[in-house]
């Protein structure tokens, strides 16, 4: 009884917040609108007066969106190489762990936000195809030797479950371009689509996706709460929200080693490999400004997700947060 009252209160709060937000964004041209209206009309006082952080710097919200766009435009070509260099290849393990936790079934629909170069989407498709193969194998093994009649029947019927689909959504066209090139070179032709969109204002209908993921993207969003609410909106009831993001290292010794590595080595790697010191300086600073595991968990719960939990990967360097829409 108490639980359902609490749920109702939360839903009411969410609805009222959403109304406020939507009227606010209509009136004041929030950062999502900026990409559709001409720049002259973009700057309203509200967006300019509200300040946020860009790394260790304080900037207006409108400026943050622009600068983040510029950062990823600059790093897009070398993004994957730099990920491998900075994390010594461990980012692949983190993403694999995300997929295993997700355990998607054949027919699932994935929305990968800030998915740029497509790492999560490609892994998703691989995983689902592998699951499908396993199911087919199990079915074949469990059935007895089929008669000629039975086996000729299977030739005519279509494939049973519907195909899994992944949508990669990113605000930055350069990152999507790199992702599309990767898909072409891997020979992936179906089940994948690339959409330009803002995480704070997704161009999708309500209750559309089974799984929403955002890997290493949410700390670049100007208003994280809005992105969480959009995630809740586009997920089907029963859908899962999963977020991989850099977080706080709990062990103090490891934390100081990690800090030294972040501030001393990573910008140098950025300069040497990508020729861009400042973008990688922003990267390590933005990690420090992002809320820690518990705070982010509370933000996800506030947005309306249930059964929110997190697990630390690599001693807290990365945290995997997960929540359900019920």
């Amino acid at each position, binding site marked *: 009884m108490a639980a359902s009252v609490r749920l109702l209160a939360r839903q009411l709060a969410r609805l009222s917040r959403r109304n406020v937000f939507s009227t606010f964004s209509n009136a004041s041209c929030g950062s999502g609108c900026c990409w559709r209206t001409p720049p002259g009309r973009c*700057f309203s006082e509200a967006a*300019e*007066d509200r300040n946020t952080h860009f*790394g*260790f*710097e*304080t900037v*207006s919200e*409108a*400026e943050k969106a*622009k*600068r983040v766009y*510029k950062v990823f435009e600059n790093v897009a070509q070398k993004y994957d190489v730099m990920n491998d260099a900075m994390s010594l290849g461990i980012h692949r393990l983190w993403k694999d762990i995300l997929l295993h936790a997700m355990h998607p079934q054949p027919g699932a629909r994935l929305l990968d936000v800030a998915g740029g170069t497509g790492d999560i989407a490609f892994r998703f498709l691989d995983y689902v195809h592998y699951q499908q193969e396993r199911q087919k194998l199990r079915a074949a093994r469990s059935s007895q030797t089929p008669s000629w009649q039975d086996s000729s029947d299977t030739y005519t019927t279509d494939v049973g479950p519907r195909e899994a689909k992944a949508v990669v959504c990113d605000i930055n066209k350069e990152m999507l371009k790199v992702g599309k090139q990767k898909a072409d070179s891997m020979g992936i032709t179906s089940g994948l689509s690339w959409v330009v969109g803002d995480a704070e204002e997704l161009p999708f209908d309500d209750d559309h996706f089974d799984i929403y993921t955002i890997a290493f993207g949410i700390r670049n969003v100007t208003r994280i709460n809005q992105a969480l609410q959009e995630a809740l909106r586009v997920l089907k009831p029963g859908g899962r929200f999963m977020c991989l993001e850099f977080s706080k290292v709990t062990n103090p*010794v490891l934390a*100081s*080693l990690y*800090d*030294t590595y972040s*501030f*001393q*080595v990573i*910008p*140098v*790697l950025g*300069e*040497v*490999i990508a*020729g861009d*010191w*400042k973008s990688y*300086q*922003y990267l390590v600073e933005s990690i420090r400004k992002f809320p820690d595991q518990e705070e982010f968990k509370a933000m996800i719960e506030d947005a309306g997700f249930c059964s929110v939990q997190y697990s630390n990967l690599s001693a807290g360097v990365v945290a995997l947060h997960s929540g359900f829409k019920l």
Partner: protein
Amino acid sequence: MWLRCCKPITRLKQRQHALNSKALCVRPLHTGHARLTYGHYEGLYPGHIHTTHLQKALLAVGSGVAALQNPYRHDMVAVLGETTGHLALINLRDRMRNDPEGYLVLTERPKIRLSTLDLEAMASLPDGSFGREYLRFLEDNSVTPDSRAEVKFVDDEELAYVMLRYREVHDLLHTLLGMPTNMLGEVAVKWFEAAQTGLPMCALGALLGPLRLNASRLQSLLTPLGPWALRSGWRARCVLSVFYERRWEQDLEDLRRELNIEPPPVGLTKKKNT
């Protein structure tokens, strides 16, 4: 034991944070209009990035490896020069200060850019004049004076200017020495610069550049090109001290004599290396 390791690391972190917060205090917050400049920290000069000694060391090693792997990465050569050249830059700056024309260069800070060059006037100069030959060099080799990388990691404003001037004078040296921009010509200029400036980056380039030359070019480097470049480098007046922007009309041979540079040995073609 752990504490002993942690203290320098925390000191490093504190210094980094102090630098960050100091830089933030210096910069006033601009509200009311959106600035699209990417000026993150106000360094000592535009484009300056504060780096610790550890970062400079890592940059030196990393840029060295990157430049060896891909010699077309001019930004890596530039970073290598900046991170290893502190003492040589001080030496160069002192030599410039002691020379009257060099002192003028240091105070007036001329910059060679396409926007500051009067190309038509230079094209109308007689053949054999410094300006005309420089223009011919730019056209023949399809280079532009605007492609110089900016200085980022030198922690003194005047030394940063000396570094920038060194980069700008590099092209002029090609003209003065009569060397094209193919690999052999670049190595010859590097030998001259290593002898002249003592910059470790030039010395490294001079030592490792010949490894990329084929046998015949290596032969022409060793005799007579290399010794000529070294001799001229040692004997020449400090090339950074010359106010080139006021000498476009001067005859090239005359300028060479004034700077004590021997005329180049014959036989280098101006076509680009494949």
